[in-house]
């Protein structure tokens, strides 16, 4: 089984990001790391091939700086990593670059990847669109929010997370899945694998090497401005001698503010 995992490098989502004077997010204090859902996807892929055989390839669209997340991928079980140089101006553009990279690798391999995993969303823009557009671009079966994959003859059975429960879905391969949080965490690299990954050469594919359709990278949508969320207003403390009076007072305030 050959699995391709799409990995995006994002700013550390535990750091509070504010807008700078130029109106752009100030990322100076946020270290970069692999997108959390993509790291779940990689862990799921590595566990799958450890149990069933095969290899995992990780593909990233980006620049030289994004090679860090590919090195980290090598240290936790990826057999091969590739950087596609470029930057999608919107989700469709990113999906086009990923699809171009995947097709190039598949042409070199002489076979399609059995499964393509994408994190369900990235933790920076939280668009949740790239996986869907990629599946459509590759014209492959598609399941969202997958938390488990098991082999089933020439197919796979995936467990899909729903709002309140799970759904088991059988899918033919090759196929594309977006991955939600499984019930385990990504592994830590050992020092040995980390040092080996540090010395590895990361293959790079130039945008010009991809067979992209005309206009594939033209933005379909563009963002106009970043806006910070409104500041939370101070609450109102209702302080009365007994609960009944306090509730009556609270209802009075809610009614006055037309909440009720």
């Amino acid at each position, binding site marked *: 089984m050959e699995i391709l995992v799409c990995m995006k490098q994002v700013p550390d989502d535990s750091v509070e990001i504010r807008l700078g004077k130029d109106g752009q997010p100030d990322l100076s204090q946020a270290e970069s790391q692999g997108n959390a859902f993509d790291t779940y996807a990689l862990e799921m892929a590595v566990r799958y091939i450890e149990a069933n055989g095969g290899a995992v390839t990780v593909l990233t669209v980006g620049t030289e700086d994004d090679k860090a997340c590919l090195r980290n991928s090598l240290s936790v079980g990826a057999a091969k990593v590739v950087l596609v140089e470029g930057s999608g101006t919107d989700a469709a553009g990113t999906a086009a670059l990923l699809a171009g990279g995947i097709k190039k690798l598949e042409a070199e391999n002489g076979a399609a990847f059995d499964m393509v995993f994408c994190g369900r969303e990235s933790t920076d823009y939280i668009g949740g669109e790239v996986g869907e557009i990629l599946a459509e671009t590759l014209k492959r079966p598609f399941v969202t929010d997958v938390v488990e994959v098991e082999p089933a003859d020439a197919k796979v059975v995936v467990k899909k997370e729903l709002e309140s429960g799970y759904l088991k879905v059988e899918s033919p391969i090759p196929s594309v899945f977006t991955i939600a949080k499984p019930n385990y965490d990504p592994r*830590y690299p050992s020092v040995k694998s*980390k040092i080996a990954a540090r010395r590895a050469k990361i293959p790079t594919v130039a945008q010009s090497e991809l067979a992209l359709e005309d206009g594939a990278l033209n933005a379909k949508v563009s963002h106009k401005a970043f806006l910070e969320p409104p500041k939370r207003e101070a609450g109102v403390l209702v302080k009365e001698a007994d609960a009944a009076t306090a509730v009556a007072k609270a209802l009075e305030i809610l009614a006055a503010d037309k909440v009720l």
Partner: protein
Amino acid sequence: MATYNKLTPELIEQLKAAAPGHLYTGEDVNEDYSHDEMPIYGKQMPDALLMATSTEEIAAVMKICNDNLIPVTPRGAGTGLAGGCVPVLGGVVIDTTKMKKILSYDLENFTVTIQPGVLLQELADDCQRQGYLYPPDPGEKLATVGGNVSTNAGGMRAVKYGTTRDYVLAMKVVLPTGEITKFGAAVSKTSSGYSLLNLMIGSEGTLGIITELTLKIIPAPKKVISLVIPFEDLESAISTVPLIKKANLGPQALEFMEREIVLSSERYIGRSVFPQVIDGVTAGAYLLVTFDGEDEDELLDLVEKTSDLVLEQGALDVLVADSPAKIKDAWAARSSFLEAIEAETKLLDECDVVVPCNQIASFLTFAKQYGEECGLIIKSFGHAGDGNLHIYQCSNDLPEEEFKARVDKYFHTLYDHAVQCGGQVSGEHGIGRGKVKYLIESVGETNMALMEGIKKVFDPNMILNPGKVCYTL
């Protein structure tokens, strides 16, 4: 024992006039003010609570209390573990959490001046936004910095950067008499008489109330990497610590933890971070090591050297937490130990004894064996790099009085053993109310008399935080 008076309605009116709108009594005072995070040392509600907003307000209230022999207990966020902020004689509690402004930075002299109620997490985050690091890193991030100074809190980074004491340059203090004074200065060195500043640090609110602090900060390291190192047993883990230090690898943090407490913590946080079985061998203990530096290459060189060293000493593996998320997860498990123990334990007590680093393993073996003899469940973790051990005594089935009696017996023997090993009663939590008798046994009457004498110089009427640190009531 000194003589004290009760608060009268007239005195309460005087206090209210001195702190308009900030003095509370009766049902307006939350039950939280009767204890810290170790209620087993006893609870007591104050008769009045001052939510202080300024040095002058504290000074005015202190003066009234001193003139009328009313006990006063200062309090930060109430996260202490030795009963230090419990108003054992009632009286007035002065809460400094509303004094939470970061007043100014002097980035040419690497200092920040703050009010005492700033939370450690707030200070750390604010410094980070400026590109600086306030190095002290006690586990409780919701403690106030004023509280940290009052206990000379240590934390995970003490092995490289030292404790809170090493970062306090100056402070404004309200003395028990109500006088306002300043100790120390924002300078790098001093040889200017007795260090009243250092007397205040670690005095647990018994000598004066800190109302402003000038602290040292350093340029923030650009990159951090943590290692999770499993070992078959604690002895093997601890035996590598002197070697890591001797090799001059300079870890920022060097923590040890045993299997049982790791499992408790992982159940508590709902994540499995530490490997349980490595090549068929069950991990019995772990080291969690952090390095900081200017770039990843520099750190990976240190990581490689450390890895070679510990693997040679029997480490089962060396795992790298190299992304912010992984570092956070590894340390989340470590930072949740107390909460995890609390969640699974009906009765608990703790000692944060400190021993020479090479005594850690044998001391813990003694602590566990003697715990079994006393019929107590013992869970432990701590700072392998500086010998500060957190040893918890737990029980889910003993009656409280029986538990307290067994713990008392356990503490007497354990602290005695610590002193014989060259250690001390508390590494970072302080003496508060809970550990005074063990301190007396540990340092002896001469030293206790000196401490009590110092207390009397600062506080002639003994009204500030009575019955704490250096004497019992």
